[in-house]
C-alpha cells in the first residue's frame, strides 16, 4: 500500500516533468513535428539549405538537423551551404563524427551534399574532408544550373584570395551569383556587428561583378539585411550556437530572429530566389523573394549606358 502510494507519487512527478519540458520546448510540445514549406518547390529549380555555425555537437544542433531532415522530406534540397564554424573546439576524428556526421546522418544518407566555407573556429585542413566538398581549397567556387556559388575564407582575406575572387566573379556569366563566407559585412549583431574591414575590400567586387546574394554566419542568429547597393545579405549563424537577443535595433535589419536556433531553405527559379528561414522547432521566422540583379536591368536594346560591368561584357538579361 505504502509502495503503491510512493509509486503513484513518482508517476505524478514524472508526468509533471514531461509536461513542463514539453511546455518549455516547442519541439517536444509538437504533436507531429513537420515542416511547412512556403517555397514554390518546383521540380527543376535549384533547391538548397543553409546551416551556419552548426558544429557544436550539442542537442540543439541535432534538433536543427532533425528539422532540416523533416523539411528535406517535403522540400528535397540538393545541398547545404555551411558558412563557417563547421566544427567548434577540437577537431579530432571523433569530433567530425559527433559534430557533423552524426547530427546530419539522415541528410548524408539521403545524399545531400554539404559545401563548407571556413570560419574562425575551423582548421583549414577541413578543406580535404570528403563531406565538405571544398576541392582541397580554402576558397573555391561551383555552379548549379544558373547559379554560381563562391565560397571565401573571410578569416584571411589575402591579396591572393581577393585577386582570385575578382577573377572568378568577373569570369562568370551565370544569372545568379551567390557568395558565402563566415564574417558578415553587414550585421546588427551586438557582439560583432558589421565587419567593416572586410566590407571595404569585398563590397566593391560584389557591386561591380553583379553579386546578388551574400550569405554569412559568425553572428549566432538569423538576420536579413535591407538590400545594400542592390545586394541582399543574409546571416544564418544559428544552426548550432545561439546568441540570444543579440540583434540590436539598427536600420539595416529587414527581418531577424534571435530567440532560437535556425536554418534557411532557398530555391532559385528563373529570375527569382525564394527564401524561407525556419527555427529549430519548425516555425517559419522569415520568408520572401529576391530578384536577380541582372533581371532588374533594362534590356540591352533600350539600355542606357550605366557603366555596369555586366553590360560592358555584353551579358544581356
Amino acid at each position, binding site marked *: 500500500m505504502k509502495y503503491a502510494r510512493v509509486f503513484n507519487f513518482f508517476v505524478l512527478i514524472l508526468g509533471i516533468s514531461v509536461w513542463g519540458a514539453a511546455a518549455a520546448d516547442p519541439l517536444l510540445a509538437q504533436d507531429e513535428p513537420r515542416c511547412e514549406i512556403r517555397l514554390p518547390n518546383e521540380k527543376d529549380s535549384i533547391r538548397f539549405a543553409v546551416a551556419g555555425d552548426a558544429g557544436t555537437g550539442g542537442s*540543439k544542433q541535432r534538433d536543427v538537423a532533425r528539422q532540416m531532415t523533416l523539411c528535406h522530406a517535403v522540400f528535397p534540397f540538393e545541398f547545404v551551404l555551411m558558412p563557417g564554424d563547421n566544427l567548434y*573546439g*577540437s*577537431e*579530432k*576524428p571523433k*569530433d*567530425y*563524427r559527433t559534430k557533423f556526421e552524426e547530427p546530419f546522418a539522415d541528410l548524408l544518407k539521403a545524399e545531400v551534399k554539404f559545401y563548407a566555407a571556413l570560419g*574562425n*573556429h575551423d*582548421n*583549414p*585542413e*577541413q*578543406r*580535404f*574532408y*570528403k563531406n565538405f566538398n*571544398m*576541392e*582541397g*581549397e580554402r576558397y573555391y567556387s561551383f555552379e548549379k544550373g544558373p547559379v554560381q556559388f563562391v565560397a571565401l575564407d*573571410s*578569416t*584571411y*582575406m*589575402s*591579396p*591572393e584570395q*581577393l585577386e582570385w575572387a575578382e577573377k572568378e566573379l568577373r569570369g562568370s556569366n551565370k544569372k545568379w551569383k551567390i557568395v558565402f563566407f563566415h*564574417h558578415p559585412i553587414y550585421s546588427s549583431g*551586438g*557582439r*560583432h556587428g558589421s*565587419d*567593416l*574591414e*572586410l566590407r*571595404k*575590400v569585398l563590397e566593391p567586387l560584389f557591386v561591380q561583378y553583379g553579386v546578388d546574394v551574400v550569405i554569412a554566419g559568425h553572428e*549566432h542568429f538569423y538576420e536579413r539585411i535591407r538590400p545594400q547597393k542592390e545586394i541582399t545579405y543574409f546571416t544564418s549563424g544559428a544552426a548550432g*550556437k*545561439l*546568441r*540570444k*537577443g*543579440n540583434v540590436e535595433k539598427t536600420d539595416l535589419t529587414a527581418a531577424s530572429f534571435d530567440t532560437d536556433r535556425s536554418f534557411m531553405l532557398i530555391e532559385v527559379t528563373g529570375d527569382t530566389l525564394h527564401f524561407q528561414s525556419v527555427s529549430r522547432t519548425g516555425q517559419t521566422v522569415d520568408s520572401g523573394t529576391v530578384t536577380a540583379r541582372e533581371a532588374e536591368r533594362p534590356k540591352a536594346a533600350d539600355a542606357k549606358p550605366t557603366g555596369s560591368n555586366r553590360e560592358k561584357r555584353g551579358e544581356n538579361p
Partner: protein
Amino acid sequence: MYLSKGLGVILCVMFTIAGANFAWAADKKSEKVTDPVLAGFIENAKAYVELRTKIEKDLPPLKDKEGAEEINAHQRTVRMKIAAARSGARRGSLFTPEVTASLKRILDGDLRGPDGKMARTTMTEESPAHVACKVNAAYPSNEPVSTVPPDLLQKLPQLPDNLEYRFSKRGDLILRDAKANMIVDCLPGAVSTVKKSPETKTE
C-alpha cells in the same frame, strides 16, 4: 594617310595604357619586396615551405576527399616531422631583429588612430588568450583564430603557400603554418591590444 595617322594615335594610346597597366601591376607585385630585409624574410619563409613540401612528399598525399582520420594523422605527422627537422629553430629564426623592425614599422603605421583601433579589435577579438609564443608548438586547435584585416594583409609581405600571419589576444604576431597547424615563429607584443567589450551570453 588619315587612316595611318589614326592608327598611329590608337596604337600610341594602347601602348600608353598597356605600359601604365604594366607599371601598376609591377608596382603592386614589387610593393612587398622593396625592403631587402623583408625580401630576405620571404626567402626564409620559402625555404621553410620547401622543407614542408619535402616532408609531405614522403607521406601519402592528402587528396580533396579524405576522411577525418587521414586528415588528422597527416597534419600531426607533418607537424612532428617538421618540428624534428628544425629542432634547433628558436623564436626569432625568421622574425630576426631586422625583420621585426621592418614588420613593426608596417604594423605601427597601419594600426594607428581610430581606424587602427578598429583593425586591432578585429585582429585580437576571439583570438586565443593563451597561445604560447613557442616555436614548433601546435597552434591550439580548440581555439578560434584571429581575423587579420585585409588592408593589413595588403601591406605585409605576402607569405608563400599556407603560411599566415595571426595575432593572439596579447598582441603577439604568430607566423602560422596552416597545413601543419604549427607555430613557425612568434613575435611577442607586436601590437598593442584593445580592451574588449563585455561579451553577451552565448548558449
